[in-house]
């Protein structure tokens, strides 16, 4: 097929030929088909998404076009991407003289424009999932969207893995109801299971609730030039642990100098800070190296982005903030420092370089320790096989559903049976039991409590027509304030100041940026950390500020607790690393110090088979250690560590603490675990038995700070408590109700409440990674190899090195208070 005029001429004038997938999408649009376009970066996905819209609108007579309302919605995960795409679309529209109105709608859009956009909508509206939710909760939503022809979902693979994907799925279900002929178009990078996304795009049930099993059509663009990726072989030996890649800084610097523009990806903000500082330390050529991460002030980030576009930077050290979407200038090299954590994530990052399909992307992987080089090797193999490890489809979150239910009440109300049918037509909620739905509606209305005392405070009520609507105008206002699924951790400002003296508060100087409250809590006065490009000394927390002072030049920062990486190692890569470990033939592909290390492990302890769990016990420095290597990622290991210490405590084996990384965990204590196992007082297989996910888990969840954080996030999203907005925080904790208190009370009095259910579902995949832990425990049943040793094994050294680097996450509040009390008594006795 060919393109109609003026499109054919426009392509021809530029010496371009429309790509096959671009034509395919125009063709699908003529038949009103929904479609998933899977293409690598640089394939012209965005133009492909819009071409059908422009073709359709260009065919209309001017008078008809004038009467056409909202024709196409474009949804992007990033506000900046929506703005960027709108800008990119302007030139073809102007060059072809198409009288098409394209507008963006973000949180920054002024109120008068928002009002006008509803009254007289543009043909194409570019926005985000949150803004779409707000529009759908508008009283005139039905009118606004009734003529909608297309909805284009950009970076769909990234959106569907989070609660925002749940929100978008619910909104999409509503759009399909309001505009029955709607075609949904998903634009995605390569994924493991495209069919999951194809189902996501179209209703899974008819309005009568009958399952359709429908899928959007699939258009795939085969990858262009194969990426050229190398693993950096540092001149210096790889350390056993650590995440700083200190030994590779000169090589990274040399690579930056040898390319036009380099993106240096790291896994955490703190690693970004550290690397940025180290690169500048050796920056004798005065190269323009910038820093970009989420804690930096937005203005500073915008400046860096503009400088990238202008081509005035040599390198940007960044976190996942630059993973997605926007083409910031002419990047010709991507450096990934640390372990990639997932093959698909790595591909996405590599795709940031060379946004042209026919030229290879260039990338360099920089492992920071010996485990990481195995992970890099495994990821590289995966990339070469084009194997993907995108996560499994999500089960729709209940807190997001609660938010949506309130939104739908605000939009001219709903009948529960209709909304249930609509909600379950969205893939994440296809298996939602009616009981859960009703509990969510009940929660939104009156809190859903067994004690029915809030009927008179109901937020939504059924009218004469059976539709539930807001009980008062304040409810809709509350909804608008609360929309969205991203709950930011409480942030503390970092301010330069003097060390506090007794009786005098620290004096405040300049604000440098923000850190998460839980990070600040792990520090004690005197600790040094890197922030905003310098080494600071932690002095105190004062109100909502961290007071820090500058350190003498050359001070070594103590690398903070979460330097290990925000994303846990993917199950897929973990399996590959385990296989590599078990097969000495594979070691040839690794640097000599790594194969020597593995060889030593085989001689001194053993190397587990690919499906085995190795557990070592040994004494060291007056303490007894237990080290296990499940390779399930830091989050699952952290949960496992909590549960193991509880069990050891109950067995009176006196554990003192534990540390973990992505590969293993170490528990230490006062009792000789090898002897206990030999005498039958400790059964290692029983210690790791799946029943730890029963009572032990329940007991731990009652006090777990991570669980409380999970609950808080659910409570905010579900609208139980109001979001904290900057500048609107109340002062003094006695006037607000802490969600920890609410959690305790609810857990005791209504353990089956829907919000606790929501938090438990989150815990399965979120901070506690329970699902993965459960999978591991099942996998290793009957395959646990216990190796009592005389001394620490080569493999164990790398885990033990985390001690002092990782925060010891004991949750024994009683022990901590006991120590504080004892400290006083010692002093008194002295």
């Amino acid at each position, binding site marked *: 097929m060919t393109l109609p005029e003026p499109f054919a001429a426009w392509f021809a004038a530029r010496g371009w030929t429309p790509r096959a997938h671009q034509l395919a999408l125009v063709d699908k649009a003529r038949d009103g088909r929904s479609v998933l376009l899977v293409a690598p970066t640089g394939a012209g996905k965005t133009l492909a998404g819009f071409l059908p819209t422009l073709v359709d609108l260009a065919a209309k007579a001017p008078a008809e076009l004038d009467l056409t309302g909202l024709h196409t919605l474009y949804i992007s995960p990033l506000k900046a991407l929506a703005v960027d795409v709108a800008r990119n679309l302007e030139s073809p529209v102007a060059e072809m003289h198409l009288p098409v109105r394209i507008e963006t709608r973000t949180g920054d859009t002024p109120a008068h424009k928002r009002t006008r956009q509803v009254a007289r909508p543009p043909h194409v509206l570019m926005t985000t999932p949150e803004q779409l939710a707000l529009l759908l909760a508008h009283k005139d939503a039905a009118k606004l969207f009734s003529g909608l022809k297309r909805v284009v979902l950009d970076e769909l693979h990234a959106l569907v893995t989070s609660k925002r994907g749940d929100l978008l799925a619910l909104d999409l279900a509503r759009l399909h109801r309001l505009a029955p002929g709607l075609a949904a178009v998903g634009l995605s990078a390569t994924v493991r299971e495209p069919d999951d996304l194809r189902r996501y795009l179209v209703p899974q049930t008819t309005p009568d609730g009958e399952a359709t099993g429908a899928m959007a059509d699939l258009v795939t663009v085969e990858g262009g030039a194969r990426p050229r990726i190398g693993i950096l072989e540092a001149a210096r030996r790889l350390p056993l642990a650590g995440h700083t890649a200190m030994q590779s800084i000169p090589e990274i610097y040399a690579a930056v100098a040898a390319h036009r523009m380099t993106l240096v990806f790291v896994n955490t903000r703190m690693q970004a800070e550290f690397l940025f500082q180290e690169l500048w330390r050796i920056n004798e050529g005065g190269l323009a190296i910038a820093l970009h991460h989420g804690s930096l002030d937005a203005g500073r980030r915008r400046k860096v982005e503009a400088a990238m576009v202008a081509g005035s930077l040599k390198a940007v050290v960044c976190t996942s903030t630059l993973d997605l979407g926007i083409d910031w200038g002419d990047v010709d090299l991507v450096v990934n420092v640390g372990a990639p954590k997932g093959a698909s994530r790595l591909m996405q990052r590599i795709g940031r370089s060379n946004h042209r399909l026919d030229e290879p992307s260039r990338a360099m992987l920089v492992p920071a320790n010996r485990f990481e080089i195995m992970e890099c090797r495994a990821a590289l193999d995966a990339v070469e096989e084009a194997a993907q490890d995108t996560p499994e489809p999500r089960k729709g979150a209940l807190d997001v559903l609660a938010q949506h239910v309130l939104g739908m009440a605000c939009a001219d109300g709903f009948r529960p049976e209709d909304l249930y049918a609509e909600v379950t037509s969205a893939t994440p909620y296809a298996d939602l039991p009616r009981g859960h739905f009703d509990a969510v509606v009940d929660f939104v209305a009156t809190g859903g409590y067994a*004690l029915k005392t*809030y009927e008179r405070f109901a937020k939504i009520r059924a009218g004469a027509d059976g539709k539930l609507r807001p009980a008062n105008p304040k409810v809709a206002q509350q909804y608008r304030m609360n929309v969205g699924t991203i709950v930011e951790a409480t942030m503390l400002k970092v301010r330069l100041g003097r060390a506090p003296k007794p009786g005098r508060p620290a004096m405040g100087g300049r604000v440098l940026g923000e850190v998460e409250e839980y990070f600040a809590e*792990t520090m004690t006065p005197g600790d040094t950390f890197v922030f905003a490009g310098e080494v600071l000394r932690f002095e105190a927390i004062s109100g909502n500020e961290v007071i820090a002072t500058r350190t003498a030049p050359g001070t070594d920062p103590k690398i903070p607790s979460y330097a290990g990486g925000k994303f846990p190692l993917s199950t897929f890569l973990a399996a590959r690393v385990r296989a590599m470990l078990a097969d000495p033939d594979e070691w040839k592909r690794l640097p000599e110090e790594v194969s020597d290390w593995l060889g030593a492990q085989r001689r001194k302890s053993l190397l587990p088979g690919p499906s085995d769990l190795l557990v070592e016990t040994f004494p060291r420095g007056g303490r007894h250690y237990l080290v296990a290597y499940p390779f399930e990622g830091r989050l699952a290991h952290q949960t496992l560590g909590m549960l193991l210490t509880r069990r050891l405590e109950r067995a009176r084996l006196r554990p003192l603490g534990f540390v973990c990384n992505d590969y293993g965990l170490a528990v230490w204590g006062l009792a000789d675990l090898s002897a206990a196992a030999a005498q039958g007082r400790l059964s290692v297989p029983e210690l790791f038995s799946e029943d730890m996910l029963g009572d032990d888990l329940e007991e731990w969840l009652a006090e777990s700070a991570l669980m409380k954080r999970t609950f808080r996030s659910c409570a905010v999203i579900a609208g139980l408590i109001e979001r904290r907005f900057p500048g609107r925080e109340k002062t003094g904790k*006695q006037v607000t*109700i802490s969600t920890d208190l609410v959690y305790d009370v609810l857990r005791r009095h209504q353990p089956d409440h829907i919000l606790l259910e929501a938090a438990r579902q989150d815990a399965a995949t979120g901070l506690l990674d329970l699902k993965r832990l459960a999978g591991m425990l099942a996998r290793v049943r009957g395959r646990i190899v216990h190796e009592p040793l005389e001394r620490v094994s080569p493999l164990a050294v790398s885990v033990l090195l985390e001690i002092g680097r990782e925060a010891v996450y004991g949750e024994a509040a009683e022990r901590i*208070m006991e120590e504080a*009390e004892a400290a006083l*008594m010692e002093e008194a006795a002295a």
Partner: protein
Amino acid sequence: MTIHAPDPATKAATLIVGSTTFVADAAGALWHEDDRILIVSDLHLEKGSAFARRGSLLPPFDSRETLARLAGLVARYAPRALVSLGDTLHDRDAMGRIAQEDAAALDATLSGVERIWITGNHDPEIPPGLGGAVAAEIAIGAVVFRHEPSASPDGLEVAGHLHPAAKVRMRGRAVRKRCFVSDGRRCVMPAFGAYAGGLNVLDAAFRPLFAGSFTARLLGAERVYAVDRRMLVAD
């Protein structure tokens, strides 16, 4: 002969104001053994429903939880009298909103117990339905019991109002708990209500009350922990 080391738990639980000895209970109450008086402060009954009225539908079990804890204490100590140091009720019509069974539970818990309701800023008037006596302050021996700590006490005082909480940090982990704070002449009690928050004892509000050193007795799950001011950290 066996030498007994002082039991830290007992030591932590003993709280002396002037020459009067109390037991600081880990549930957040003071026990005056000689007169068999149980003292609690800042119950804030029906705080949950007060929030619900303003659109935050918090779990309505806070009164139930608070009263269950109180019932536990009454069962353990079998007091002759109960002194509630003000802010028993979160607001004026708390007793109008409280679930019938919760109101009944309160009455049952305190049957046969002499009730003394000190008025607080949240409950300047106590509904007659609660029974017992109402007072702005009372004295037990030389110690005066009132809701708000006075700016310049000329004597010994036990008060509430401020909801003290203390935070200690050890080995990279912080623990923040409600606490009693006392310097031997004055004691500020922790809030007893399930939804009552806590104000860090290093906050400026405590500074005029405790000029010198003081001890915070943190409420643990197992017992009370006496921690010196120097070991405490701000929020």
